[in-house]
């Protein structure tokens, strides 16, 4: 496939120098971006591994929590457990901060302690049982894991977007910009050589005309 050249370019030495400079710059940029892309991919794969294990942890914790909740409801009563949970609700403050991974801004979520002690949950100890404590504790731990998972998933999303963006840039440089600059430089070089040849013949022709007159 023939590579296009930059339209409207003037075949001058000045333009050749400018374009050669741009070509070497673009090539350097391509190499740097390629390195950034590879590093981002390595980081991405590392974080993806964390996502998998964090998701697995959340699923397993929630499975246990729901099972405990089921037993607690069966023993204490679904209505009573519902009333207790309504009275135990609270706001949890989650704080956001930003971390920079190779120019990618990813969130860091931090929260107050979610897991409460037995006497902090808002229900008495006489008509309740240990399964309710276990369900509550497992849901609280699951919530901590979910917030952590949200942080990791957002990091993965941001890294993936950056990898995609960098990949597009590398491809654009590698397959469009650099070849086009290269082709244009080649075109100008050829055009200048041609012009040189034309000028040489013209001069030769003038010289011959002058000699025949002389």
């Amino acid at each position, binding site marked *: 496939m023939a590579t296009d050249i930059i339209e409207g370019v003037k075949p001058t030495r000045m333009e050749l120098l400018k374009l050669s400079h741009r070509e070497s710059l673009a090539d350097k940029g391509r190499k740097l971006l390629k390195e950034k892309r590879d590093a981002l991919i390595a980081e991405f794969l590392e974080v993806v591994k964390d996502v998998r294990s964090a998701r697995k942890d959340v699923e397993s914790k929630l499975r246990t929590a729901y099972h405990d909740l089921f037993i607690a409801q069966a023993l204490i009563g679904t209505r009573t457990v*519902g009333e207790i949970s309504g009275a135990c609700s609270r706001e949890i403050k989650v704080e956001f901060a930003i971390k920079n991974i190779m120019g990618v801004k990813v969130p860091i979520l931090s929260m107050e302690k979610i897991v409460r002690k037995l006497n902090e949950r*808002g229900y008495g100890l*006489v008509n309740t049982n240990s399964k309710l404590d276990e369900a509550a504790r497992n849901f609280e731990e699951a919530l901590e894991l979910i917030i952590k998972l949200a942080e990791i998933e957002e990091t993965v999303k941001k890294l993936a977007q950056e990898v995609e963006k960098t990949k597009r840039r590398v491809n654009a440089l590698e397959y469009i910009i650099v070849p086009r600059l290269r082709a244009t430089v080649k075109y100008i070089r050829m055009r200048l050589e041609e012009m040189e040849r034309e000028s040489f013949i013209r001069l030769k022709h003038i010289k011959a005309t002058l000699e025949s007159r002389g």
Partner: protein
Amino acid sequence: MIFGLIPYLYLNARIMAKEAKLVGPDKLEELISAPSVIEIVSALEETEYGEYLSDLAAESVEAVEDALLLQNAEIDEEIFKIIPKKVSDLFLFLKKKWDIHNLKVIFRGIDGGLSGEEINTRLIPAGEFDEITLKDLASCRSMEDFIAQLEETSYRDLASELAAYEKSKNLFYIEAKLDKIFLDSLWQKISNGKKKKLPLLIDYFTLKMDCINLKILLRAKRDALDLKEVEKYFVEGGSILPRLKEGFDGADLNDLITMLEETDYFQPLMETLPQYEKEGSLLPLEAVLDRLKVRKGKDMALKQPWAIGPLLGFLTSREEEMKKIKIIIKSKEMGLETEEIRNLLLEL
């Protein structure tokens, strides 16, 4: 001697009649094998619960549980009326436990921001509080108002926990105090004055109070709480609390059970300890204590068949029946297989 038993004849005849109507093993098997909650409700319509289940607004687990509670409350009222007058004050707990139930529903509702009407729909029309008092309590918009309205009742001491609640918005303080007020006054009533007349009742409640305190201690120990964090919520009575409190802070769960050596709780708890260590759940230990209570209740029915034995046996069997039905209904709703439900009933 025989004259002392005459007042119990009518009571025991009625109790035996009621005992005969409890859900038997065949019916229980029918409930376990029922394909859905609707079928369980249909099967229960042929039992004592039928009247309360026939006009259920919805066949949800909550609606069925409400119907079971209503039936239980009415049976309690009925039993209370036929208990011999000379000991009826010792059985006031049959009424008061519904006050406790309703008060908990009300303050949880207030704390959860429910309207008075919403709270009213969840109350059980039983206990010592009349309908108007319950409505007034349910219409309170703050815990302060609620506790102020209880000023003239035996629950006035709840005020001592108001500051802790207001500071932390933690209902634990109120609920634990309410349970303590109820159980302490129950124990004081039973263990004072008429003690010699009803030693069986003392035996029954000694076990009950021991189980309550022991469960609190086990849960507190598992959560690594210090004794001082839960101490004031232990209930009076029972036989084991002083020795457990003494060594609580330095002991682990194993030590705690070892401290029960020479009591009836030691061996079954020790035998179940490996299961706790394997599963990490206190439930098997709690189930052991519940089984001890059931066994004790049933033993009492045989021990004193002409006095209050059958009543205590019936109360225990009914509690057990209610527990089993609730487990079956919830398991059915969750889609558990018949065999899984059977295993669950054995475990719990």
